[in-house]
């Protein structure tokens, strides 16, 4: 597939953004492929880590940000440990996730951020994962209401593996208070990370 290279994304733009946020020198990568070789989830990725590094070097943000590569990274850091050029690849993957959230670069696949938001909401309200609420909300918001309901969901409800009533922690209010406090303290930081830098 032909790709039109854009010099501004190579010289500055995307590559520079990734390098600045992750504090890694992506241009160091010489494509030996050791990261892809050891990655336990590379088989499921659209682009393996080494290819992702190359795409950052060439500023192919539209392809990379829409791919599942960074979202599938499990942060096991095998790649980071073995990289002969000492690039923290796991950190670069994290950075790509942060950048996807910040929204400067277009991301076509937006279900993962939805999942993240619902997950955090569940923690905030119940202090734990409220499975049925989470599944329901995720299915609704991702416009796929019957995903995994038949027969797996029904079976699990019948066996009592998941329940309609949320399990609460001893003091759910304390959790809400903590999260509110965290939001207040971190607001400036988040602004810095999401808006000013990205």
């Amino acid at each position, binding site marked *: 597939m032909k790709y039109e290279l854009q010099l501004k994304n190579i010289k500055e733009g995307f590559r520079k953004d990734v390098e600045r946020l992750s504090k890694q020198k992506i241009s160091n990568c*010489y*494509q*030996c*492929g*050791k*990261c*892809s*070789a*050891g*990655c336990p989830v*590379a*088989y499921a990725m659209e*682009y*393996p880590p*080494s*290819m992702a590094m190359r795409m950052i070097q060439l500023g192919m943000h539209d392809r990379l940000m829409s791919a599942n590569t960074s979202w599938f990274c499990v942060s096991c850091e*095998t790649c980071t440990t*073995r*990289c*002969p*050029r*000492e690039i923290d690849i796991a950190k670069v993957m994290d950075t790509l996730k942060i950048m996807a959230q910040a929204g400067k670069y277009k991301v076509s696949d937006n279900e993962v951020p939805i999942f993240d938001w619902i997950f955090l909401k569940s923690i905030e309200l119940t202090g734990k994962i409220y499975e049925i609420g989470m599944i329901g909300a995720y299915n609704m918001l991702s416009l796929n209401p019957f995903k995994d309901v038949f027969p797996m969901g029904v079976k699990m409800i019948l066996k009592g593996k998941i329940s309609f009533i949320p399990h609460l922690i001893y003091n759910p209010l304390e959790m809400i208070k903590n999260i509110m406090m965290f939001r207040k303290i971190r607001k400036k930081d988040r602004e810095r990370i999401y808006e000013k830098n990205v």
Partner: protein
Amino acid sequence: MARIGVFVCHCGTNIAGVVDVARVAKYAESLPGVRASIDYKYMCSDPGQNTVIEAIKKYNLDRIVVSACSPRMHEGTFRKTMERAGLNPYLMEMANIREHVSWVHSDDKELATQKAMKVMEMAVAKVRRSEALSKMYASIEKRALVIGGGIAGIQAAIDIAAAGYKVVLVEKEPSIGGRMAQLDKTFPTLDCSACILTPKMVAVAQDPNITLMTYAEVVEVCGYVGQFDVKIKQKAKSVNSKCIGCGVCITKCPNKKSLSEFNEKLAPRKAIYTPFPQAVPNVPVIDRENCTFFKTGKCKICEKVCPTGAIEYSQQDEIIKEKFGAVVVATGFNIYDHSNYGEYGYGEIKDVITSLQFERLLNSSGPTDGHVVRPSDHKEVKNVVFIQCVGSRDEAKHRPYCSRVCCMYTAKQAMLLKDHYPETQSYVFYIDIRSAGKNYEEFVQRAQNDYGVVYLRGRVSKIFERGEKLIVKGADTLSGAQVEVEADMVVLANGLEPRSHAKELAQLFHMSYDQYGFYNELHPKLAPVETAISGVYVAGCCISPKDIPDTVAQASATAAKVCALFAKEKMEVEPLIAAVNPLTCSGCETCYNVCPYSAIEMEDKEVKRGDVRHVAKVIESVCKGCGACVGSCYCKAVDLKGFSDRQVMNQIEAATQELSTKDKLQSTI
């Protein structure tokens, strides 16, 4: 009053691009004693030098300052110009306004110009006090020392000896031959390595001009080009010259606990041994650390079986003092120890072997007689994986350089394996194929196309054992796929690094080396076999990883350099040495003690009529002009010619004064 000429060079735009050379020249005119000041595009060119000569004649100058590049670059050039103009060459000073000014201060042109003026002014101040010096000559000891008996040392020794000069070849191991003797075949022609090396080894042994000292090490060096005093430690071989090389002692020796270094620890060897059957000299040595007699005091079997009575347990290490005119250092390489690579098993998986070990397995005189078998269970192999760039191109392991030969020897080994066992299959994991050389690329192509070696572009991430097999987890970045190969044996293409004692040897000679221990050549392009120490030359892999053709070429180059040095009757030396004024010398012997070259001797001298004093004296041919004695003298009795106290004080004065007001006005305008 001195009549000084100042010549400011533009060096194209190298200097003129940053420094306002016209202003520097104009400023020079305002300095006392300066009668002429000229700037020119290339002062070192022929017309540039003629400008200097013409100006000297026209203005009747008696000393000059050249404001140009580093004296290392063109001091010699302008000294010759001085001679052509009929002046003493030591009445010339270089002011370095290129390396010291324009190249490092390109960001601020105004300040750079002011610094250039200052540097020039200092040189003018110094030259004002310069004295005419006459050239000195030293004799040359026409014997060469070659350190290292690998192919580089062998070639250098043969070439120097062919010119009729005496050579001493010192080798640490019991036999010469080095790494090349360990190899099975050589790329790209697949010549048998031993077949082309052994004739040269024999030639060394038979050449009447070459003295071979094996099992010996250089331990101390002093002196300088033409006159190196070297102490060589001849380790006790415990076998004397009566030995006829019959080998009975080796066969009968009951002690085979130690592992053969020559066979890369794949096979045991006896305590009395020669490294390999074609060893030169074919005289065994006793490894005293492992010999039963030296450990327990009992055994002496070798002495009993020796037909000529050559075994001599009482031999001691001997220090031999020799004088040499030139030294060739060719210490060669070690291969990278992969025990740092956790992902490749920390060097503890038995069937993950180094390339040199594989080379020994392939060799018909190797530990397995040429059968390629797994070291763990001695089973023959079917699938072999080769991994390139182990300890090369790896910053995380502090080996960022390319070792140059691994791509080629891996292709060779894969081909040889296929030749030996047509049913085997080789896989090569590579990052990039570097096959620059005559017929090299074709060779790698042949391995891929004719021999069916599977090349996979990607570094291997992990090797682990599963049952009897080794699982190699790699990737092929060209297809983007992860690859897993089930192998019987993994061969690592270990990179090259300097010998472990390379640094200590360099320190003996005061040679410089890089962070890995590779010796620095004088100039990477134009003086590739010289070092910063004149009279010491380097060849082969001790400079950087290289293949056999390049090594041999370098060895012959060092021989040419040595012969050129020896062809002269006498050698010109710089007269920039220390001199003692006996009238003020107190005879305290401080300089005598600090001199690093032992160039000062104490003598009783009649300094005035009837006044005999104990004073220091500089041995002119030994002094290197380092200035240690000058700094240490309590009564300022020692001075360095060309860098006298008066010259240096003048320079400091010039440096600490403000630039003259006249130029300040100019710069504000």
